[in-house]
């Protein structure tokens, strides 16, 4: 009796009737379960955002109010060893940010002549007045430090959310 099957089927016999095929219903069920997992993940993130502790921190004196002229900066640590920078903008407003770049956490430096914070690792740049990224790979603004003034002294009192 001759076997008219192609040669490859003789060398690699395959029993289709024993194949464990996935039906559309099974795939749909798996898709819905994955959808549920994604919904749970989004819900957990939403819950975390509401449970997050208020961003109040220790009150630390960082400079005298008249110590910085327009366009000057002062580096300090806040809170507990984290590098930060206080700047008096060209318009005379005092602002403070964490120095940690929101791209890959390199320390940004203040460039007064260019009126920006610059990250030397990947040429990222941030606006001084708002902290928002204006060049390079960073997409999120620099974490801003809340300031208070009392008795001619500028205090860092927490991170803004």
């Amino acid at each position, binding site marked *: 009796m001759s076997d008219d099957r192609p040669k490859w089927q003789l060398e690699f016999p395959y029993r289709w009737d024993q194949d464990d095929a996935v*039906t*559309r*219903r099974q*795939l*749909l*069920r798996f*898709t*819905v379960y*994955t*959808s*549920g997992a*994604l*919904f749970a*993940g*989004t*819900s957990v*993130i*939403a819950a*975390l*955002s*509401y449970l*997050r502790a208020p*961003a109040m921190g220790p009150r630390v004196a960082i400079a005298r109010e008249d110590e910085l002229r327009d366009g000057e900066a002062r580096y300090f640590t806040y809170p507990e060893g984290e590098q930060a920078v206080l700047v008096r903008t060209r318009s005379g407003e005092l602002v403070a940010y964490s120095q940690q770049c929101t791209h890959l956490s390199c320390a940004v430096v203040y460039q007064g002549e260019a009126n920006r914070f610059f990250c030397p690792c990947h040429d990222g740049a941030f606006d001084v007045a708002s902290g928002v990224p204006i060049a390079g790979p960073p*997409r*999120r*603004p620099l*974490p801003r430090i809340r300031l208070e003034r009392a008795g001619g002294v500028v205090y860092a009192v927490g*991170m*803004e*959310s």
Partner: protein
Amino acid sequence: MRTPRIADDPVRAWEGPVLTTALALGLVLMAIQLWLLTVALDLLLGGKSEGFLRLAAASGAVFAGGLLVLRLLSARPRMHDEG
């Protein structure tokens, strides 16, 4: 007793393409859910405190729709579309 075939019931012959379309749509919606999740994570890491409820509600609506489709399908017997 053999499983009924689609060819035996012309009224249900349209179910195969509809189910395939629903499955493709479900996969697209799941990709949108993944995008919603990344947006929520981006907002959280960016220190934002608004917009999370809308993202979770949209993701939940997609999930609820999927559950509804599963429930509707489970109420109907499976039919073979092959010979």
